[in-house]
């Protein structure tokens, strides 16, 4: 079998039509996806619009770049202000502004900023440009975190001295915890992230059951999304609670234990700031003391609690759980805009607030 079947145009179209029929009598079913790539693909494949007004999609806090906090970015600023270091980052992070200044702006000022596709590439940069001290910004959830582990292992083996790591990695289990502290999920069902689940296994998300709504682990090809949505609708109609997996070719209950071990061997969980949500208990990953030599926080004595003067009143948390619409937020369009985004819903290209900002209404009918 070839995985291309999951993007077979004719099969997807037929499935979409069948699913549209299946939901045509339903009213305003709200499905929350945690994963930014789900949000992106649902939009890009045209599914967000296809099910209106029967199904609406709510974008949860599942983009690791969007939840990278002002506190995290203040550490980058500290490094630039105090040391002659180069920064290595994933492309996603370059446009995220800290008080109007992004890594792109730093690069425009002549600061070395290198973009990589893989954490392992950071080692190559450090090897090739030995005259400079480099700091890799580790962003991402459990899917990306092992990449940083691998990068550190390789750097250690090669005896690289001019590379350290600043971990902004976030723990996905904390997504649920964070949402739990905000109260209810204003959703009828949850689309669980397929790729994080491939690593952590779907048992990891059992806590979702306490919200009393069903959840399905979903893949990212168009047919995966439709199959997952269909499964979730069935569960909602049958009033089932619990987790099902609609992405079994990549996800099982226990995940990839080797990767989980790599994370455990390299990182401890710590309390961490999430943009728009505040401090989340055990919501982040920090390098173990054993790796102090590779930890940029230690190497450059980055002070704890760097001052961050944050815009008050961001209601992203409430937008993320579906409690309010972006227009209900006092900062929306007044202070918060794509050029000066305050919360993750405006940072993310697929964020609910950004969609409202650009097109007036998130769910504009296109036909």
């Amino acid at each position: 079998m070839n995985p291309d079947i999951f993007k077979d145009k004719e099969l997807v179209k037929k499935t979409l039509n069948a699913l549209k029929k299946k939901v045509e009598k339903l009213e305003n079913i709200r499905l929350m996806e945690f994963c930014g790539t789900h949000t992106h693909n649902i939009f890009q494949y045209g599914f967000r619009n296809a099910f209106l007004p029967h199904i609406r999609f709510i974008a949860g806090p599942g983009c690791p770049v969007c939840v990278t906090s002002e506190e995290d970015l203040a550490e980058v600023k500290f490094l630039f202000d105090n040391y002659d270091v180069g920064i290595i980052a994933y492309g996603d992070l370059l446009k995220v502004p800290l008080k109007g200044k992004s890594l792109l702006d730093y690069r425009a000022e002549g600061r070395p900023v290198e973009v990589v596709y893989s954490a392992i590439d950071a080692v190559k940069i450090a090897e090739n440009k030995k005259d400079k001290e480099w700091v890799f910004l580790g962003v991402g959830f459990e899917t990306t975190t092992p990449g940083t582990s691998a990068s550190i292992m390789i750097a250690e083996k090669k005896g690289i001295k001019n590379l350290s790591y600043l971990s902004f990695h976030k723990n996905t289990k904390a997504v649920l915890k964070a949402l739990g502290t905000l109260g209810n999920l204003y959703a009828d069902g949850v689309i669980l992230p397929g790729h994080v689940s491939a690593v952590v296994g779907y048992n990891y998300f059992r806590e979702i059951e306490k919200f009393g709504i069903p959840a399905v682990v979903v893949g990212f090809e168009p047919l995966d999304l439709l199959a997952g949505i269909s499964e979730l609708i069935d569960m909602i109609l049958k009033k089932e609670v619990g987790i099902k997996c609609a992405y079994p070719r990549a996800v099982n209950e226990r995940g990839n234990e080797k990767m989980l071990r790599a994370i455990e061997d390299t990182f401890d969980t710590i309390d961490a700031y999430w943009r728009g949500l505040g401090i989340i208990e055990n919501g982040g990953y920090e390098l173990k003391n054993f790796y102090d030599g590779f930890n940029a926080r230690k190497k450059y004595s980055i002070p704890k609690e760097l001052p961050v003067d944050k815009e008050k009143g961001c209601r992203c948390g409430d937008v993320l759980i579906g409690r309010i619409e972006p227009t209900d937020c006092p900062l929306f369009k007044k202070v918060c805009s794509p050029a000066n985004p305050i919360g993750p819903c405006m940072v993310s290209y697929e964020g609910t607030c950004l969609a409202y900002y650009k097109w007036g209404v998130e769910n504009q009918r296109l036909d």
Partner: protein
Amino acid sequence: MNEGKKISLSLGSGGKISFDFVKKEIISRFSNPILDSLGDGANILNNLVVTTDNFTVHPEFFDGGNIGILSFCGMVNDLASMASKPMYMTMGLVIEEGYDYKKLLKIIDDIKNLADNFDVKLICGDTKVVEKGKMEGIHISITGIGLRMTDYSLPVKNYKNGDKIILTGTLGEHTISVLKAKGAIEFDGVINSDVAPLCGVIENLIKEGVRPKFIRDVTRGGFSAVLNELSYIGNIEILIDEEKIPVNDSVKAICDIYGYDIYSLACEGRMVIVVEDEEAEKAVSVLKDFEVSKGSSVVGEILSNDRQLVVLKTMYGGKTILDMPLGEILPRIC
């Protein structure tokens, strides 16, 4: 207010940030009817068209082309976008001290050969050398002068329901080729830039009696930027049928791997052409006769709604919005 503000690469990337800068800082200062029309070139006197462009691509050589070929094609494609036949050009060279002489000659010869092919005469120029390290390699600025072939100027302002949108080939090869040459992305396999002169194609199209309403070469900002500009100029909604868009499977694969949006990648040898419904079939058949536009097809149409929106009917049967791209093209992990 702009104290300490520095120029970032996004300003020149052809997306929304470039567009806003031009409107806010250039048009506002130099405003006049010719400039304000925001064309790829300017209609002056009776039937002359002038265009100007700078080329700074680095490295100067990439799979499928080089900065010389790129600057000639960019110039003639801009003139073709104004329905004009390129006649004369000027050329400015800014070269870094220590630049390889043979490479320079290769670039100049490539421009000369193309100019001969299309009977474009170089009428004046300028050469400067900059101290080593003050710039990288070579920059070329080219101004082109053409004769308008139509009795109206492009782009027109009025579009009607059912006007057809033609795209002359696959998308994104140029950006991918250049990113690879820069070392920004790595893969085994060759993707050649689509860089090509389209002035001959457009000349033929008009000679055959087709009366295009809009012609634009797909460059920085990609297909999305061209369509959003069209939507803005005509105050119209546009519906694009994704299934009709020709795809280079290797480019698609790169986009999947790096998370690039194929519709915001640049081309240097593709055109978007709008014609009335009745002319669409003929236009496509004329275009298909040329090697550089053999991939032409009708990919969408204009809707009479007066909301400015570009809607993409996806290959999977849904609908989504194609937005003006924002700034630099960067790989994504999420």
